[in-house]
């Protein structure tokens, strides 16, 4: 039985110093061992394995052969990789700010005392829990080049119909638009939770001092929910870098795997490229290298965001 922690952290500690772990430490390790073992085997183990694969020539059907940095060298000279990297960044740059900004506005709007508020919140949450396949059919009704509403509207206005998802320039912006529509409800909920934690008396005090709506939002709301904002930015950056399913489904990967990421690789993001190289072409070593590059990028970006948070995130 663990004794009370206060005792453990005082005199008792000193006598147990000689032993590697005292009673309590052992219990702690034992009770967390299911997770620790899971972590060692299924997380750290697989990470190291994939690092080894990324340094080998590995087609899954034969044992890996060590090639050192050759995969990384090929990566640097691979135009498709650079295109995929750019597509990914372009997606993130469009998606993260748009979604965060819209979600914040929605959250503030839905934080009022309105009738039918629950209905609105629910309506924004429906796309979040829908599968991408369903979303594909819904958005196809709009963006289908032959039968979609968007082109019907354009032609009625006397404008040229567009190819939408088959257009190299438009494909990523349209995908971002759909992704924002699907994801904004979830982020809005995080903001809502943050907003409801802002103490009312702050607003009241500010009102007494004569601060208007804009000022109150700027000097109270924003700083008070900066913690949620930080969380949202980190989460959506990481998830966007790992976007796969949406693009695979929406660019027709389900019907024809070679179509995914099209037209002409205009929507090929890193995860899609990794999947294609690893699972369609059996270049598992090369795919592992792509995965590690992705990891390093995300690690650096997250680290920068964490460093920057000191300047603007305000925790009570």
């Amino acid at each position, binding site marked *: *039985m663990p004794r009370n922690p206060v005792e453990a952290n005082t005199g008792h500690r000193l006598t147990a110093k000689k032993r590697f772990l005292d009673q309590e430490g*052992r*219990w702690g390790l*034992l009770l967390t*061992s*299911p997770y620790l*073992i899971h972590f060692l085997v299924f997380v750290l183990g697989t990470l190291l394995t994939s690092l080894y694969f990324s340094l080998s020539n590995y*087609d*899954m*059907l*034969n044992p890996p052969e060590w090639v050192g940095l050759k995969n990384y060298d090929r990566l640097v000279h691979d135009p498709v990789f650079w295109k995929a990297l750019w597509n990914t960044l372009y997606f993130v740059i469009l998606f993260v700010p748009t979604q965060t900004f819209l979600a914040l506005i929605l959250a503030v709007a839905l934080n009022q005392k309105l009738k039918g508020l629950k209905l609105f919140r629910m309506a924004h949450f429906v796309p979040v829990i829908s599968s991408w396949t369903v979303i594909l059919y819904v958005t*196809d009704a709009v963006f*289908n*080049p*032959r*039968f979609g509403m968007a082109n019907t509207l354009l032609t009625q206005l006397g404008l040229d*119909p567009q*190819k939408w*998802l*088959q257009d190299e320039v438009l494909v990523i912006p349209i995908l971002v638009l759909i992704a924002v529509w699907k994801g904004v409800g979830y982020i809005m909920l995080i903001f809502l939770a943050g907003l409801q934690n802002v103490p009312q008396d702050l607003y009241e005090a500010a009102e007494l001092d004569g601060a208007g709506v804009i000022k109150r939002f700027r000097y109270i709301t924003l700083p008070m929910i900066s913690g949620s904002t930080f969380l949202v930015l980190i989460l959506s950056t990481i998830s966007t870098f790992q976007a796969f399913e949406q693009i695979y489904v929406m660019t*027709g990967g*389900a*019907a*024809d795997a*070679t179509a995914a990421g*099209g*037209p*002409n*690789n205009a929507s090929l993001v890193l995860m899609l490229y990794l999947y*294609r190289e690893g*699972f*369609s*072409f*059996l270049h598992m070593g090369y795919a592992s290298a792509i995965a590690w590059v992705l990891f390093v990028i995300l690690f650096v970006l997250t680290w920068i965001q964490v460093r920057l948070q000191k300047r603007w995130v305000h925790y009570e």
Partner: protein
Amino acid sequence: MARRFVSLTVSMMLVLFLFMTGCSSSADPQGSGDQVELKLGFYSSGASDAKMQELIDGFMKKHPNIKVTTETAPYGQFFQKLDTRIAAGNAPDLWLSDGVLVAKYAERGAIKDLTEWIDKDLNKEDYYGLDFNKDAEGRYWAVPQGIQIGVLFYNKDLFDQAGVSYPTEDWTYDDLKKAAAKLTLDSKGKNADDPKFDGKSVSQFGLTFFSITEGWFPVMKAYGGGVLDPTMKKSIIDSPENRQAVEWMVDGMKRGIITDPSDLKSFKSPMEVFPSKSAAMWFGIYARVLAANESGLNHDVTLLPKGPSGKRFAPVIANSWVINNKADDAKAKAAWEWIKYWVTEDEVQSEWAVLGEAVPVKKSVANSDAFLNSGNKKINKQAFLDSFEFAGTLDTNAVWNEWVQVFGDNVDRAFLGEVPVNKALGEADRGVQKTLDQFYQK
């Protein structure tokens, strides 16, 4: 205290141990006598699974010492799972391989060379498609389970409405295009020969085709071109014959007669265009008969057209049984028994033919009523059998998936009018050769 600690530790270890062994493959003990347990993998297609199980039960009755367990997944996941299982060393003892993937496994040493057994046990004359699994060195890697072969499908009602006479076996690709122009209608009902025809609002295409098998490959071959030379290691894309073939397609797409890649995207799937009466003709493989029948089309089939010099070509995919190279002798022999049962037994062949999914492998069954008059609709199934005379595979090799992607990406840009044909084929040629060299010149 200490004892409880120990017992807790031990029980946790035990749970973990059980969990771990549950995840790994347990070696199946060979029972007494010569009982063999055979793991059979195939991609399931809903409708045919029950029939497959029936045939497996029949096989076990005939071979009481072999116990067959099945491993299935939908097509899309089957090969991904299979690859990871081969990597982990616990793949099935034999599996059904998509015809275009046999070379991928053969050239990477994952499946058994079956030449000896085929020579010994099968009379090659009796079967269709054995040679489609033969490599450049003359080795056999697989035995067909059912064959897909391409023909020209046409919608009789749409031909009648346009007053165009049905395709004949003498058609050239130019004849096809002439007819297709009359069968292409815009939203105002004008056909493609009409000067007022609006190619931007096509409501009915003369011909739909997509991707490799039911698209560019047979045309290029009939024009005397192709993608790889007979060694399957060298690209022959940049040739005048291919240019002529691709020009034929690009011109058709530009005029709105043939579906281009972007038109296809407006349908839920490329397979939907013909059954939904949005196109009058289609290059389709045998399996497409099912969908056409289901949608109640009044359709028929004939041979694919001739190229300019009279050359013909029909694309073939021989989906085949292959045996895991790591299967031990007993299991490999049991697997071979299954393959023999599948191709030699008339009953098995007829039962499978009735499903209408593939052309039967055994010639005697394919040329009998079991195949020719199967299904609820009479169509000219003889055309599928006649096409074997000029049938060929899709230049399959170890990196087939990859070169198809490279070629497809480039040719699509020509189809969409973004890149001139010369340039697209030149880039495709370089890209495909690079892909080949990466694998073959290690």
